[in-house]
């Protein structure tokens, strides 16, 4: 058996969801009366999986199924309530691409700030600063404040800086939300190079075409559990089929009826 780059054993993650806004008096009252202040939400349960070095894995699943929680556990941002995670090397993770910038700083300054937040030191980035900004296609905005950039431009900059990372294990969570087709081609070159480089990749996206271009394996997370794990095409086929049973909510609403009811409640003007 080959040694895994990632091994997740019997991992569960519980969040404690507060009932109300917590204040000192409410906390004290609940302690005195032994009342619960919060309830449990199990985001992940009994997750077991193993990722080999150099494997490119897509995590798929519906909103709220636990994909991002699993990636945060892998990255060490959250701690599992139960179980063990063993990593051969710590991953470099890119979650929301707009976080890690300061809107009041210039693009040039933000290259170093975002880089430092993702483990890239100024000494390494400084000689490549112009190239990083040019790769994002915003050379003319080098001295502009970040708040003057569009969401897509910020995302380009984030990916351009992150591309400087040379970690063996990379994690991407929904990173191509706002970029245009032109930049998608640029990122395509980057992700294809990553795929060829033998690095371990774990990616999530709701775009099957994006995942399919780079991943050979998919793991379908459903309600906090691994529902299916296998070759990308097979898992995606099963995953796509799962939507067939969904009630057509918007269609029902457009027709004037909610699923399970005869009619929508009439809106009140009071």
């Amino acid at each position, binding site marked *: 058996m080959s040694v895994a780059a990632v091994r997740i054993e*019997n991992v569960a993650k519980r969040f404690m969801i507060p009932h109300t806004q917590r204040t000192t008096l409410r906390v004290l009252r609940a302690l005195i009366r032994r009342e619960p202040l919060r309830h449990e939400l199990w985001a992940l349960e009994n997750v077991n999986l193993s990722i080999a070095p150099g494997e490119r894995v897509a995590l798929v699943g519906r909103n709220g199924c636990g994909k991002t929680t699993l990636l945060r556990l892998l*990255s060490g941002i959250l701690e599992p309530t139960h179980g*063990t995670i063993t990593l051969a*090397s710590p991953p470099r993770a890119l979650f929301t691409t707009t976080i890690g910038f300061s809107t009041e*700083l210039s693009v040039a300054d933000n290259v170093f700030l975002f880089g430092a*937040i993702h483990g890239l030191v100024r000494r390494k980035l400084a000689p490549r600063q112009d190239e990083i900004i040019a790769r994002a296609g915003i050379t003319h905005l080098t001295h502009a404040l970040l708040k003057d950039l569009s969401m897509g431009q910020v995302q380009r900059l984030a990916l351009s800086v992150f591309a400087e990372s040379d970690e063996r294990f990379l994690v991407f969570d929904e990173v191509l939300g706002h970029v245009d087709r032109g930049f998608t081609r640029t990122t395509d070159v980057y992700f294809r190079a990553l795929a060829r480089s033998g690095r371990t990749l774990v990616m999530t996206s709701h775009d099957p075409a994006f995942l399919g271009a780079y991943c050979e394996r998919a793991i379908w997370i459903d*309600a906090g559990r691994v529902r299916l794990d296998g070759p990308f095409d*097979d898992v995606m086929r099963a995953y796509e089929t799962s939507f067939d049973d969904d009630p057509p909510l918007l269609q029902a609403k457009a027709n004037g009826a909610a699923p399970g009811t005869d009619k929508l409640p009439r809106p009140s003007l009071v």
Partner: protein
Amino acid sequence: MRCRESPATRRTLYEAVPAAATHRPHVRRDRLLAGLHGFTSSFPDATLRSHVVDLPWGRDAPDAGAAARREGRVNTPPQPIAARRIDLPWLASRAAARAHTLLGEPNRALFAELVRAAFKHTDHNSVAGALWSLLAPFAMLSALYLVFRERFGEELRAYPLFLLLGIALVSYFATVTRRLIAILFANRALLLNTTVPRETVILSQVAFHGYKLLVEMVLCTLLAVYYGTLTWHGMLAMVPLVMGFLALVTGVGMLGAVLFSFARDVEHIWTLVTHLLMFVTPVFYGLESLSAPARFIIYWLNPLTPFLVALRGALIGPPAGPGVYVHAMLVGATVLVVGYAAFLTAESAAMERT
């Protein structure tokens, strides 16, 4: 490669984990780690050899409900999990692991970038901006000097210096602790979406505001030269005192950050407390002017007082006794250790609750 779906568990693994192994995760982990050391040594990049990471989360209790959940009841919660045992060795090992991360080059670079960004952001990247932020203590100094000069100024030596030292310490303490209490909340998106160590964000705030304290300390030293009260011994004594004071501020901030995540009105309560600090700390009056019980309370129950007394002794004289120095350093070290222990123990829960 075929995709398999188990009807019992509705999940398929590439490598099935033996059921018995899940009850002995530590044994398996040791074996795996031994294998990983061999694996990573084959990497061409030598730096990866030290990156065998065994995340310190394995303190789990056996999950009695796991078998029932495998039956397919997806949303059935597991049996209650025993609370993690928090003991001194666990805290020490965790603190040592963090120290290793915090002292690494990427984290030092991150710390410098965060402080630099805070400077540029807050003071508009200009010297004038930095001077503006020093205006408040001097406005306070002027007001207190005008009001209390007649009452206390005659009996206290170098009264403007006496006042400035008090104002600098109390305003730094109040500003930074108020900022630190809400820091996990204010930086929630950053801390939940990046691997930035939480301590780095906290320390960057302490350091960023520290420059104002530093400027005020330099001004105090210049005033001491003007009044002819500065000695080499006094200047040397200032260094550990300021370090101890920073430890106190960091410890209180970490403790407050954890408490804030459990009860949101802690911030309001703390704002009230810091407003009162200006009066319950001997900023514009001397301890000698208080009654014995009041002096006892203000010296022993207010952690700022020993620092202030010792610093005034160093810069204005007469020098405070060694007991005051020891008291101040003990307060700083104890509060930092207690605050960091609380932070390490509860940071994950605090982060998830913010």
